[in-house]
């Protein structure tokens, strides 16, 4: 059964220095508040895993929490570049950042393999591209029945996973709905997990299209209303597209970013 905790407790118990950690959420339900708490608690040497690093990892990278990024699409959606990510890769600021680059299909299958307790996944992917030459976690694999050559990627076993959901009940059963991304897989791929929720309710009402994570498969649950801002939680908030645009200017300049960081700390 999940432990119901404060955000600070949840982060302290879930995300440790040196962890391979995923903060997942595909545009929707991105756990920003938990990431800010990670910044406040001064975590270091994280290997950050996420299909779309988005602003959340631009912030963690700029704050010096990360040593490596595993990802498949690193932009500010609809706006442009992730400047802190680029500054780290190109100028080692504030610390050097190693990069492991995949495609969405590869990342999704790596989560699935880890959630399934398998060491690798198989897909039709990457072939004919220049990615395998740069990423040593992409290898050919031969079908033992047909002889066809496909692509294997290793499971994304995580030390910790953090996701945001709309609701949990008092036993820590979690329900999220709307676009659900790879959150279930990330939680199931991790040794430790933290789910921040908009609301803790007495009883979960089953919803169409909902993903349910039983409390016994979740580590910690923390009630953090608005915890996905500037992304959104369907039924609770709308996406703050303005902040995504503003971020371009904040993140472009180290000084402006450091001022923003002061506000978080």
């Amino acid at each position, binding site marked *: 059964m999940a432990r119901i905790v404060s955000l600070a407790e949840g982060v302290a118990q879930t995300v440790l220095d040196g962890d391979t950690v995923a903060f997942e959420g595909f545009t*929707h339900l991105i756990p920003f508040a938990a990431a800010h708490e990670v910044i406040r608690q001064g975590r270091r040497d994280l290997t950050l895993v996420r299909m779309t690093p988005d602003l959340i990892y631009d912030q963690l990278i700029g704050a010096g929490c990360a040593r490596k990024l595993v990802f498949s699409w690193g932009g500010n959606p*609809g706006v442009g570049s992730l400047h802190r990510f680029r500054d780290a*890769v*190109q100028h080692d600021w504030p610390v050097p950042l190693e990069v492991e680059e995949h*495609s*969405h299909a590869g990342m999704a299958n790596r989560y*699935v393999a880890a959630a399934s307790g398998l060491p690798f996944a198989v897909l039709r992917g990457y072939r004919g591209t220049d990615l395998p030459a740069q990423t040593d976690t992409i290898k050919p694999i031969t079908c033992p029945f047909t002889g066809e050559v496909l692509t294997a990627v290793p499971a994304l076993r995580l030390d910790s996973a953090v996701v945001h959901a709309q609701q949990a009940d008092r036993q820590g059963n979690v329900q999220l709905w709307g676009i659900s991304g790879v959150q279930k897989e990330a939680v199931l791929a991790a040794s430790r997990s933290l789910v921040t929720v908009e609301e803790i309710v007495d009883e979960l009402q089953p919803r169409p299209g909902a993903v349910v994570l039983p409390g016994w498969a979740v580590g910690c649950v923390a009630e953090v209303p608005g915890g996905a801002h500037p*992304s959104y939680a369907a039924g609770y908030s709308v996406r703050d597209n303005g902040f995504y645009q503003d971020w371009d200017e904040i993140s472009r300049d180290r000084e402006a970013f450091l001022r923003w960081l002061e506000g978080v700390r």
Partner: protein
Amino acid sequence: MTGYTADEMMTVEASRALREGTVCFVGIGLPSTAANLARRTHAPGLVLIYESGTLGAKPDRLPLSIGDGILAETADAVIGVPEVFNYWLQPGRVDVGFLGAAQVDKHGNINTTVIGGDYRDPKVRLPGAGGAPEIAASCKEVVVVLRQSRRAFVDRVDFVTSLGFGTGPGDRERFGMTGAGPRRIITDLGVLQPDPLTCEFVLTHLHPGVELAQVRENTGWELTVSPDLTRTPEPTERELTVLRELKAAS
């Protein structure tokens, strides 16, 4: 019809590439605009799949992100991201994949990763692959949409993020691709299609008011022009009206 921009022409022409009843894998930005324009004009039964997991989304305004709530609210089904790629894209259930590009080369290979320098120390770091490599591999056909310029239209991309025809005939087959690959590149100046023998993209359509010399100037390889070079029909009144309404509402 007069008084429209080159970008509007490009978007309208992209929408025309989508036939009624087909299934289309859509990225945010111009592909999404073109697909929703098609849905409101000649292809009301177009099925839109966004990689966020919305099958058959029917947004009544342009989504602002690939995970816009309007997509989930109007979809026939909302599924997880692994299922999008594994059950729907990979087996070839999608008719048309719409891709943008930072660079495209004469064989239709796409680069959205790095420009200049090398991979570890590039001149420009781009967002990366996203869903594109597998869209390019598995959709029955691919349509590439981007503004034409000498920097973007290159002889050989700096990095192959998504395979077009590789170095020429036979490459897709050799790599076991199940989809037919890029069938057209739609730009603000015209349309290019692959020569079936060489797999090199040749100019097949010039948009209204565009000179051939303009296209050559903005192409980084020795451009071949189709003997059947055609003028793209102008946007219709209705196409422009609907496009502008869509844009204004978002």
